[in-house]
């Protein structure tokens, strides 16, 4: 057993979840800046 492809999949899934969340949060922050006129 080596499971390298599972290790790579776990790495990709981890970062897609984290960076996806940060991207959504950044988009919300950007829309707030427009609302606050900054």
């Amino acid at each position, binding site marked *: 057993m*080596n499971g390298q492809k599972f290790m790579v999949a*776990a790495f990709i899934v981890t970062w897609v979840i984290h960076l996806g969340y940060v991207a959504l949060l950044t988009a919300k922050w950007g829309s707030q800046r427009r609302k606050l006129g900054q």
Partner: protein
Amino acid sequence: MKKLLVSLSVLVTIALMIWGYYQAMYAAPMEATMGDVQRIFYYHVPNAMLAFLFFAISFLASLVYLATRRSNAPVAQAADAWALAGAEVGVIFCTVVLTTGPLWGRPVWGIWWTWDARLTTTLVLWLIYVSYLLLRKFAAGPQMQTLAAVLAVFGALDVPIVYMANRWWRTQHPAPVFGGGDDSGIKDPHMLAAFGWNVLAWAVWGLLILVFRVYVERRQQKIENDRAAAALAAE
């Protein structure tokens, strides 16, 4: 000064994440039985530890909200922002736990999932906090924050159950890495170092996201307060 501090925090976090990646993928030796798939452990376990931490933050902030909501509105609003941020970031980390776990289980156990105590209580924990976020998203009215705070307090009761699940019951999930008796713990110093660096890197990353989430929520509260004040002034 504030911008410099934020830029510095982001740079330190990125450097730690790269170092953590190097430690997990290259510096730590390959585990004899499982091979490379064991390296998932360096992501899975720190994400689980931090999910617990963020749910604990949500729990404490919810208690503060419930204690101060009638007597001290500014403190209550700040606590509410921390409670929401803790729950939301906790759900993100818990989602990573629930996806990387099966990706490890498939090659090692031969199955993606089993309804053992550790896995099931973790899924229940995730569902409780997802329902918390749905409540906050779709419920309206002045009672929403109070209901959400009560749900966060009850949800946090599942955290010690998840932690103790593979100590109290016989589970398919591996035995505890730490605090599981005389035989527990990482024996190889390189593996221990890789694990430690990844805990540190994920903790710094998680806290950075948490603070960003609190900041966004505080601004949202300001936007809503301004809107309410404008509506009152227009009457």
